[in-house]
Structure formats: structure tokens, C-alpha cells
């Protein structure tokens, strides 16, 4: 395992001052992929993305080409929706892609829409990111004026309209069916699947593809260089590169694009070009490998490669590419409480187990951390967890429409399994033992 010299596919322009402008984007090869795509049949473009074997970068990791292939033929209108509602704690990549290279995303949106024969696309950006809105709005205006978006694009006879849409503060809207509800002007509550698989019954009940910002930002590179070149990076199972946000107790927190499958968690956390090791020479207590929803990892997981299959098998997930590192001084109860608090706050309230369960978990965790925990609180936490996610297994089973509720179980079950003694000490001594 090593730090590889794989090229930067999607962060290559992050240091280019004018990359967000049309002139800056075109000067570094921008919109050549669109020209190339429009010169071939939509099916050929779809085949290229399938060959790239790119897994969705939003959290679930479903192959994008396969997803596009799910659209029923000959049903129109059909839509592409871009999920830019980045809000999973620990996750910080889509905002950067929107702010620093908006045309790269727009070119990806154009190519994807062409491949799936859509004539309208929606870019849904989290409301709390106005600078990203400004950059994307300005880029869209330039791209329309230049003829890259709109009627009869570059003489191809194909037309696309792209609508920029803002959210207004709700994590749940990152779930694709909730995002569709929100885009229709409703409360952002997930729909039941089946029957509401977006590819069949999505936006306005029409066939819809929902893709993450990072996923679509890879598409211009894939079209320019070929699906095989993308698939040659990383491993057979986890192709390409991926952006990881490395936060918490490391010397160099940052956003790093690394090659999948060949780079390990240890490389990411310890290599001088990435995290540079744990701060103040301390040891590792735990790390979250893929955002707040992911079960925690420990010392023994450091040498696992950043590969979907490997991490899934080890009992967690790469999720949204968010690695949060906790050093040995971290109170595991306090850290888990902070993650649970998030899910309790963000539960949309549609499903009873989640609405009630996440809040119960927070209340119980809170009293333990505050020193008023009870002897049977650990059993109670696990009982509530089991009601949210029967068996507390991985991958989680769920008693809810979407995975938000079971996600709240991850930090609770992880920390109790590994740090039971800390919980017991909090309860016995009636205080936080790490203060």
C-alpha cells in the first residue's frame, strides 16, 4: 500500500485561480468532452460510463452507469437531478467542486443528460452554501450565452435546460426521494421504494436520475480519456480516484483526491502529503471511515484499503468520503452523543421508530455524559437501537423508509461495543471521565 502517483481527475483545477470562469475552464480543456460526446450516439456515451465502473460518490456507492441504464426506454419527459445537498457530518467535497470548478460539473450534467436523453436538468444545492450558488449561477449564465446549454446545443439538434435550485436547510433532503419531494415544493420526506424508485417514478412521477456532484464531475474526464482509462485506476472493484475529507485530530486536516483501492486509511491519516499523523504525537482512539452514518473503525482497520468492498466487508462504509479522526484523549461517549444529536435533530418525523428512537438515544446518551446515567441505560440504548435497526447488524436492517434512523445506531453501537468501560465509568462515577 502506498501513496500513488495517480492523476488528479476532478481536483486538477483547484489551484487554478480562474477555473470557475468559462475562459479559465476552456483554457484547461473544458467542454472538449461535451463536443466529443455530442459527436457520438447517446448509447455510446452510456457505454463509456458503464465501462468506467464509477461508483456513486454520494454515499450508497451504486455504479452510475448501471443506474442510468435503469431508465425505461421511450418514456418522456425524463429528468436529471444533481444532488448538491452535502450535509453528512464530516463531508466536505461537493461544496469545493461547486465553488472551484462549476463548469466541470455543468459539463458532466450536459453529458449525462445527453446519454439519458433528458431535456431538463436540475442542480439542487444546499441552501447554506450561497457562495457555491453564486459560482454555479455565474457559470450557468456563461454556458448558456456560449451555446453550451439551451436550444440545439452546438448544432447537435439536442436541447437541454438546466435549472439551479436551492435547498433551505434539511439534511434529509440528501436522500434522493426526499430531494425529489423538496424539488416539487414539499416537505423533504422520503418516499417508499418500491414503488417510487426515481428511475421509474421520480420527479413529477417521471423517470429521473439523481446523481451526486462528485459523480458527475468525473464524467468529462471519463469521456475525454475513455472508461477503460478510468477503470484502470484503483482496483477492479473500486475504480478511479475519490475525494476524501480528512478531519479531526490530524496534523493536516484537508481535502485530498486519492486513488481508490491502493491507498489505505493509514496512508491517508499518516502520509506527510495527507494527514501527517495524529496531532501532538498522540495515539488513535477511533476513526469514522465514511461520514457520521458509518460504524467506527479502530487501530486494526488502519491498513484496509479505501475500497468499497473491503470496507463494507469489515463492517462499515466509505459513505460520503469523510474520515473523522479521534485521538486517545477523546471521550467516546461525548463523541457518540454529538453524532446521535445530529440524527435526532435531522429526523424528518415521517417514521415513528426514527422520530422517537433517535430522540430517545440522544436523551439517554446525554444523561450518561452529564453524569446522571442509570445502571440499565446501556441495555436501554441497545434496545432502542434494535427497534431502529433489528439485530444491530451491518449492513443495517431498517424499520424505517430511509436509512437515517439506522444511521443513528452506528455511533451508539460502535462506542458501546468498544468502549463499554467508559460508559460504565460515566454511570458509576456520575460524571464525564474525560473532563
Amino acid at each position, binding site marked *: 500500500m502506498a501513496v500513488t502517483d495517480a492523476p488528479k481527475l476532478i481536483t486538477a483545477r483547484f489551484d487554478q485561480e480562474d477555473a470557475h470562469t468559462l475562459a479559465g475552464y476552456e483554457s484547461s480543456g473544458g467542454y472538449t468532452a461535451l463536443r466529443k460526446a455530442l459527436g457520438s450516439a447517446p448509447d455510446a456515451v452510456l457505454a463509456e460510463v458503464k465501462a468506467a465502473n464509477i461508483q456513486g460518490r454520494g454515499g450508497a456507492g451504486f455504479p452510475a452507469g448501471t443506474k442510468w441504464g435503469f431508465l425505461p426506454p421511450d418514456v418522456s419527459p425524463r429528468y436529471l437531478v444533481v444532488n448538491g445537498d452535502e450535509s453528512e457530518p464530516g463531508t466536505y467535497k461537493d461544496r469545493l467542486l461547486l465553488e472551484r470548478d462549476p463548469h466541470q460539473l455543468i459539463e458532466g450534467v450536459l453529458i449525462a443528460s445527453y446519454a439519458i436523453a433528458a431535456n431538463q436538468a436540475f442542480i439542487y444545492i444546499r441552501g447554506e452554501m450561497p457562495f457555491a450558488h*453564486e459560482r454555479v449561477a455565474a457559470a450557468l449564465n456563461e454556458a448558456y450565452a456560449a451555446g453550451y446549454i439551451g436550444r440545439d446545443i452546438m448544432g447537435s439538434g439536442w436541447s437541454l435546460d438546466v435549472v439551479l435550485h436551492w*435547498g433551505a*436547510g434539511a439534511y434529509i433532503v440528501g436522500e434522493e426521494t426526499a430531494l425529489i419531494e423538496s424539488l416539487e415544493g414539499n416537505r423533504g420526506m422520503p418516499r417508499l421504494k418500491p414503488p417510487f424508485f426515481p428511475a421509474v417514478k421520480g420527479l413529477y412521477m417521471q423517470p429521473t436520475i439523481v446523481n451526486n456532484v462528485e459523480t458527475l464531475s468525473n464524467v468529462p474526464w471519463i469521456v475525454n480519456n475513455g472508461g477503460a482509462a478510468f477503470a484502470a485506476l484503483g482496483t477492479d472493484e473500486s475504480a478511479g480516484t475519490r475525494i476524501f475529507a480528512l478531519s479531526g485530530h490530524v496534523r493536516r486536516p484537508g481535502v485530498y483526491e486519492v486513488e481508490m483501492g491502493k491507498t489505505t486509511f493509514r496512508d491517508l491519516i499518516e502520509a506527510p502529503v495527507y494527514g501527517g499523523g495524529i496531532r501532538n504525537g498522540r495515539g488513535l482512539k477511533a476513526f469514522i471511515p465514511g461520514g457520521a452514518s458509518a460504524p467506527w473503525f479502530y487501530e486494526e482497520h488502519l491498513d484496509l484499503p479505501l475500497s468499497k468492498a473491503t470496507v463494507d466487508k469489515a463492517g462499515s462504509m466509505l459513505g460520503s468520503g469523510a474520515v473523522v479522526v479521534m485521538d486517545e484523549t477523546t471521550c467516546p461517549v461525548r463523541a457518540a452523543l454529538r453524532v446521535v444529536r445530529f440524527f435526532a435533530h435531522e429526523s424528518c418525523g415521517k417514521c415513528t421508530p426514527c422520530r422517537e428512537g433517535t430522540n430517545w438515544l440522544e436523551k439517554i446518551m446525554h444523561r450518561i455524559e452529564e453524569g446522571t446515567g442509570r445502571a440499565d441505560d446501556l441495555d436501554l440504548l441497545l434496545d432502542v437501537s434494535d427497534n431502529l435497526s433489528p439485530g444491530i447488524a451491518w449492513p443495517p436492517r431498517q424499520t424505517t423508509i430511509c436509512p437515517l434512523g439506522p444511521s443513528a445506531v452506528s455511533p451508539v453501537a460502535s462506542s458501546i461495543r468498544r468502549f463499554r468501560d467508559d460508559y460504565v465509568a460515566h454511570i458509576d462515577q456520575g460524571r464525564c471521565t474525560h473532563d
Partner: protein
Amino acid sequence: MGRLNAGNVALAHEIIGRYPRTKSALIPLLHLAQEQDGWVSDEAMVHIAELLDLTPSEVLGTCSFYEMFKREPVGRYLVNVCTSIACMLGGGDELLEHCEKSLGLTPGATTADGLFTLNEVECIAACTEAPCLQVNYRYFHRITNEEVDALFADLRAGGRSGEIPPHGTLTRVRQQVDPQRWDGRGGEGLPEERS
């Protein structure tokens, strides 16, 4: 205050025209109302209901779901301090404590002069830049206590207006589509909406 002014009504019609179905314009119009008044009043929701052919309760139903919509006045500057897990590990709690002292506020409260509202918030997607906060959703990364004090002093003195518009104004760049460039086929063939 309240109902959208003439300029914003014209803008509202332009926004509505961007979507295959009118209700999709609801969240954008609520943002527009909040931009006009700094918050979303009952009068604004009634007006939006008229514009979208919805009932006021349907508008309230959507509005009340989303945290950014404030249904009562807030400070001119909304200070959102992140204390989610990554920021907690990186000093977010200490940053919040400093903001409380500096503004003399507990989270959720507004200063008597109506200038600042302080909030403790969940992840704002700046996890590698802890500790961090937003003022009217403009980011301040890896901010020190001294920088916080200087920022608040500047805002009290009426400074930084170019950088931080008043609460309610999000983007200052709007999407402009020349009708010549928009084919307008997005909603073509869409079945009639059931009423």
C-alpha cells in the same frame, strides 16, 4: 413588509416559469420573501399561496419544515457556529463559548439592538477547516477568538457589507436565461397535474 413588492412579483413569475410545475417554485419564492424582509411573514406566505395557486397552509407546511426559513424576525447577522462532530474535535465548543461571551448571548437569542442572532448548528460542510462559523451563511474557516472579535466589531461598525449582505440575501448572482436559448421542452408531455 409582508407581501412581495412589485419587483419581486415580477421575479417570482420568472422563477415560476422555470419549472414544469408551479409548486416547485415554492422554496425559491420563500427565499425571495426572506430576502425582501429578512424573515418570512404570514402575509408573505399568503401572497406566495396566491401566486402558486396553493392554500396558505400548504405554503406553511413546506416553510416550517426547513430550518433556514425564519418565521419571526432575527438579527441582521445570523451567526451560526458549528459544533458537529468534526468541529467538536477541532475546537467548535470553545468557539461557541467565545461567541456567547463576545455577543452576550446564549444560542437562539438575539442582541437587544437587533444586530446579531447566535445559533449552534450542525455540520456546515467545512469539516477540515474547524473551528468554523458562518455569518449569514458566509464562511469563516479556522477562525481564532481574536478574529471573531474583530469580525463582530466590524459588523457593529457597519463594515463588511460587500462581503456579508443582510440576513435573507443568499446568492447575489441570479440565473439569467435568454428565452432564445431555452427550448422550453422540460415539461412537454408531462401529464396534467391532479388538483
